[in-house]
């Protein structure tokens, strides 16, 4: 059906693009989740008033287009002469972006653990850390995991924007091939299909977990 000049080589090139998309996503989500975890705990412990400055800072990442954040982040690192390659810059910006959303997910997860359950843990002589680790963490994870999966997929899709900084991720790789081969529809469809293949099963899995864990247990 498709008479195409697309070669095996080009498919490998697309594959490399997809690998870059995944690499950016994995690094950013990992770093963003760690930060989000720390911020979320701070946010929960400090209460709404004391965590205001933190919330304001994080809110910026949710209220400014990612594209603008990336360009600004890149300009900033260049002004500061940090000499980061685009990969680093992209990951730093995306991590903060992830952290901003993750913080709320973590806070919500912690808040979903009933106070009495935590009191029960503390009154058995557990320390705050033990309570957090053995009781709050597993319970909050169940509540938060579906939202976290959604966030991860969101970041994966949003990571397409790092092409702006010159990173050859999946969408950019497709554009390069479109430039050379002039088969925009066909190549873009492949590109979309790859995104879909990565995203859809995970999204479904998230939905499954949500249904499975929604009340408790």
């Amino acid at each position, binding site marked *: 059906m498709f008479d195409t000049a697309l070669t095996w080589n080009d498919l490998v090139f697309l594959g490399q693009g997809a690998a870059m998309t995944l690499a950016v996503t994995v690094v950013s989500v990992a770093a963003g989740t760690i930060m989000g975890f720390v911020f979320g705990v701070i946010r929960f412990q400090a209460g709404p008033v004391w965590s205001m400055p933190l919330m304001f800072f994080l809110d910026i990442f949710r209220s400014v287009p990612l594209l603008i954040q990336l360009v600004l982040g890149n300009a900033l690192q260049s002004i500061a002469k940090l000499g980061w390659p685009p990969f680093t810059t992209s990951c730093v910006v995306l991590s903060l972006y992830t952290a901003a959303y993750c913080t709320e997910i973590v806070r919500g997860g912690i808040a979903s653990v009933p106070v009495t*359950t935590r009191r*029960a843990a503390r*009154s*058995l002589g557990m320390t705050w850390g*033990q309570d957090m680790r053995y009781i709050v963490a*597993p319970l909050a994870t169940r509540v938060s995991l579906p939202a976290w999966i959604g966030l991860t997929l969101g970041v994966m899709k949003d990571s397409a924007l790092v092409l702006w900084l010159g990173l050859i991720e999946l969408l950019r790789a497709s554009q390069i091939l479109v430039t050379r081969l002039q088969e925009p529809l066909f190549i873009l469809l492949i590109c979309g299909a790859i995104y879909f293949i990565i995203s859809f099963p995970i999204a479904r899995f998230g939905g499954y977990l949500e249904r499975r864990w929604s009340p408790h*247990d």
Partner: protein
Amino acid sequence: MIEIENVHKSFGSLEVLKGINLNVDNGEVVTIIGGSGSGKSTLLTCINGLEPINAGRIRIDGTEVHAKTTDLNRLRQKVGIVFQQWNAFPHLTVLENVMLAPRKVLGLPKEKSEEIAVKQLTHVGLRDKLSVYPSRMSGGQQQRMAIARALAMSPEYMLFDEVTSALDPMLVGEVLDTLKMLAEEGMTMICVTHEMAFARDVSDRVAFFHQGVMAEIGVPDQIFGSPQRPETQEFLGSVR
């Protein structure tokens, strides 16, 4: 021995405990009754240091609970507490629920803590539920598990806060029986309850709380038979 001396406690501007005095001897069972919001639960959470107090003093075996130097986590191993509901750790099986604290807090090896857990679960009649998750059990079974979990730390004192009031009427009996058993074994206990029959049966002394004050305390026959204070009379009248 638990010594409570002139304890005051406020939440913001609301004074919830207005100078409570109470000594509980070893082996004694004291029940606390009283209207909603009278400060019963608050007192229990102050006793094991989950809440700070504003004035007064609580000592357990001579150790002051709210002193800066007190290792609260240590102290709490001595004082078990069971609440009204959401006691169970829902992500752990019954056995794991009971084993967790002995392992992590006391640092016992796995086999030893499993042994303790099985023993206590057998004690409260849950021998056949070891690998079940709490959500698969009735509320009464969950409460008995919570009691076993507290007992697994070999506490010297037990505090119970309306452990039956979130339960179906049909399940109340099994939990109260467990408490009775503990009382008969000589455990020192403070029980907050709305079950008057239970209070009458089991207690050495019954304390009536009213608006943050311990309005009256005495042996069950006196409190239920001839209450002195009008508030007590009114409360008992409304309950029956």
